[in-house]
């Protein structure tokens, strides 16, 4: 009996401490607040414009592409995803790669917004990881499920904000993409052309 009470007391203290710390510490810098507001607006806009059921998939893809190129630093993500092979690529290959990369991202993610089923997002604190990089933490709630942790990595530069990575439950979308691409290049002889062939094939139906 005593043991149980003691355990409960310790546990509730821990929980209060855990939940109280971040919200009390919310006297945040303009960079953190700015990033947080930016992500909040981005999420609102995504729900408002992309999740509508009665638009065609082409229209959804068009809207997604507009939001993507505005709010995400797509060239930086693309370059990161190519890793060291960026250096080896010719100007022409780079240009084609950037174009195919964007098309692939649109093809991969746009349709998912059509399956939206009432998920809500709650923004938590923002953390400064680097003089230019803020991570805005959030929880996404799906009815009847435990909340999913979603981290938005935002690059800030004199008042402008761009998402460079979305990390879902510890899984980085950008890093996963980079690992995927590296495997393709290594398996097709170690040259960028192998990846371009695969990307052309993958995006054929969407261009």
């Amino acid at each position, binding site marked *: 009996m005593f043991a149980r009470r003691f355990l409960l007391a310790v546990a509730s203290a821990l929980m209060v401490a855990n939940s109280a710390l971040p919200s009390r510490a919310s006297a945040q810098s303009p960079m953190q607040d700015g990033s947080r507001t930016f992500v909040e607006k981005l999420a609102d806009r995504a729900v408002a414009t992309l999740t509508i059921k009665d638009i065609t998939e082409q229209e959804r893809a068009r809207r997604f592409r507009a939001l993507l190129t505005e709010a995400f630093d797509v060239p930086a993500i693309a370059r990161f995803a190519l890793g060291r092979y960026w250096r080896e690529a010719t100007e022409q290959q780079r240009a084609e790669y950037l174009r195919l990369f964007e098309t692939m991202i649109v093809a991969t993610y746009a349709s998912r917004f059509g399956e939206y089923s009432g998920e809500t997002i709650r923004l938590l604190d923002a953390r400064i990881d680097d003089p230019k990089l803020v991570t805005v933490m959030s929880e996404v709630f799906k009815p009847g499920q*435990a909340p999913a942790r979603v981290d938005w990595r935002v690059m800030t530069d004199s008042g402008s904000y761009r998402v460079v990575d979305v990390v879902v439950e510890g899984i*980085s979308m950008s890093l996963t993409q980079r690992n995927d691409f590296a495997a393709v290049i290594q398996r097709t002889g170690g040259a960028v052309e192998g990846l371009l062939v695969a990307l052309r094939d993958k995006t054929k139906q969407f261009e």
Partner: protein
Amino acid sequence: MISNQKSNRASGALAAVLGAVLVLAGCAGGETAGDDINDPLEVPNRLIFSVNDALDNLVMKPVAHVYKESLPDPVQTSVRSFLNYLRTPVIFANDLMQGEWGRAIETLQRFAQNSMVVGLWDLAAENGQHFHNEDFGQTLGVWGVGEMFYLVLPIFGPSNPRDGVGLLVDHFLDPLDLYLTNTHRTGLQLGRMALDGVDTRARFLKPLDEIEKTSLDYYATIRSLYRQKRADEISNGKPGGVKMVPGLTLDDDQPTTQTSENEE
């Protein structure tokens, strides 16, 4: 990192065997999530992966589909809840071995609450205490044992020597599993495993289909996801897992095989 004393105390008789295995395999500390594919067995791994994938398409996926479509949602929720409930001793033991006292207490509290409904309903989650999983592979990770190398196990899928050893040790931390072994109730034992497998597969029907459809190299993508997921589980979601970020990581010209070692 943890002292040898503690690991000996914690895993008892297994420590000697385990220690030998881990030392032989070379226990490099920390989890690497980056460019290092760390997959010396890639050729056999890919082979086992494709056999697993074929079996999945032939057996697991159809069964998981039927399970998902024919059982009402509340029943599926109950199944998951009950399987999680049965896993309590394993989770609790690993919470303790990782020194996660708060989470150990939470595991006990969840068990106490859910016992009122024999684990068939996750009351505790509704009161804000959500399920968390632990396994001995994670415990070894917390103790500083690296993943060593990527390994695809037949049937079980993505793994590594550390997590494979973890699977084995978790069997010995599970009183119900031990009881079923000792009383030769193999049917029940396999039944529980199968149900766990089917229920888990049913939950990943859509995400895995998506990943297979959108990735260029399915095997490499799963390898990346597994590694990142495990790193996150070992750190219990604490920040600092992903250090490579577009716009900051300027390693365009670094050889891929050495990046993560340089970062350590």
